[in-house]
């Protein structure tokens, strides 16, 4: 469970996040949406500790960021997995080495035990027979799967994804979405995804937080987003004619 209370963050005197309060539950796939420049990335980076908030707190399973000791912080980082927009796989390492890296850094397991775990998570993301390949030899979708495998190899409590579908074809994007959703349900992880992909919003958003100009303008589930009359959300989510028609059809049905 992550509880965010009145989170504020700015750079060079410009306030980017203007007091965001929300929460993310375990076993739920939560999405952060909003226009470019709305503060999504700053929000996500604040959640994972890459940015230090100027005001407000983030509480992870009862432990507030402001109360964390260095040891707590180290422990917390081992409990979170992150999938970056560009996958951020280590170029000089093979798929196997990339996924094994957190295990090597933070566990004292013997090599064969680590290898078993690596093979398990690679199978889980449907990526067999690629252990010895380098990231440059993989397609975008495969790279994302390796990134997910690396993110879950330590059995994290929290999974953060920054635009996991960007640059992927629609079919692969759905596969990645479903994979994240399955993993979240299976391991009861608190998953927070930063996305622009409206398919993801409709398909896997147990909770959706809509940011506008650094403020939480709306939050609800993927079902509620069809019914909302919040103008900002409607303008953003249903900006294409196709989605307008989908929404209309949904509203007509109910």
């Amino acid at each position, binding site marked *: 469970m992550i509880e965010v209370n009145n989170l504020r963050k700015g750079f060079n005197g410009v306030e980017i996040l203007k007091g965001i309060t929300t929460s993310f539950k375990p076993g739920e796939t939560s999405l952060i949406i909003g226009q470019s420049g709305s503060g999504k990335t700053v929000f996500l980076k604040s959640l*994972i*500790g*890459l940015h230090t908030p100027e005001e407000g707190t983030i509480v992870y399973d009862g432990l507030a960021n402001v109360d964390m000791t260095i040891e707590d*912080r*180290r422990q*917390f*980082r*081992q409990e*979170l997995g*992150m999938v*970056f*927009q*560009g996958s*951020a*796989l*280590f*170029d*000089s390492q093979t798929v196997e080495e990339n996924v094994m*890296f*957190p295990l*090597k*850094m*933070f566990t004292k397991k013997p090599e064969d035990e680590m290898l078993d775990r690596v093979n398990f998570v690679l199978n889980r993301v449907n990526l067999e027979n690629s252990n010895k390949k380098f990231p440059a030899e993989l397609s975008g979708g495969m790279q994302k799967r390796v990134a997910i495998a690396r993110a879950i190899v330590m059995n994290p409590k929290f999974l953060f994804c920054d635009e996991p579908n960007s640059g992927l074809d629609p079919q692969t994007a759905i596969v990645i979405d479903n994979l994240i959703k399955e993993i979240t349900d299976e391991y009861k992880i608190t998953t927070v995804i930063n996305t622009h992909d409206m398919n993801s919003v409709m398909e896997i958003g147990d909770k959706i937080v809509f940011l506008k100009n650094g403020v939480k303008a709306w939050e609800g589930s993927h079902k509620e987003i069809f019914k909302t009359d919040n103008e900002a959300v409607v303008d953003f989510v249903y900006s294409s004619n196709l989605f307008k028609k989908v929404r209309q059809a949904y509203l007509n049905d109910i």
Partner: protein
Amino acid sequence: MNYIEHIGKYVTMLKQVFTKPQRARVFREALFREIDELGHKSIGIIAFISFFIGGVIALQTALNLESPFIPKSLIGFAAKRSVILEFAPTFCSIILAGKVGSYITSSIGTMRVTEQIDALEVMGINSLNYLVLPKIIATVFFYPFLIILGMFLGIFGGWIAGVISGLFSGMDFVTGVQMDFDPFLITYALIKTVVFAFLIATVPSYHGYYVKGGSLEVGKASTQSVVWTTVLIVIANYFLTQMLLT
């Protein structure tokens, strides 16, 4: 950003670099990888350049000492001194600054712009310690061997050049090389090498680690890092010579 800020940031970076590695096994693997990338793969270029520059030094010395009153053995003596004092430690270090410095900046810079460094930080890894410390250890411990190799091959190149050109005999050259040998000169050269090796590892790492933007900025940072490393080597060379030889 002014120079004082850069120096402050560089020193702060070094403070983070010199911490205990989080996992000895991972550090050892990274160290051997860096020894291979930064040291082993530089042997060829150092050997090639040392051999030919040693030859050129010997030929030029011979052509400038044509007086019958000057013994031919002085050619070997002068070539030895030039190679040991300046050519091997300084010239080779500048070449390494170009070759290795650009590699370090571009590899770390690419990791920065592709969020690989963020990925390390999110995992709770001290990215500076993980990325830069193995490079410093690899260069500081391996480059003295490279420079000693450069000294041998430079002097050998001088001897070969003399024998082939007929400007001086091999025996005269060897006599000159053995003349008035002062072991402190080797110590001096190796002290310089260690300082230069440290600069070659850290200055490009600094430029790569703090790069912002995309591939164009990484390219610019690589160029800047080579320029600054060379400038700092030349300045350090002056001060070290002043301190150690005068």
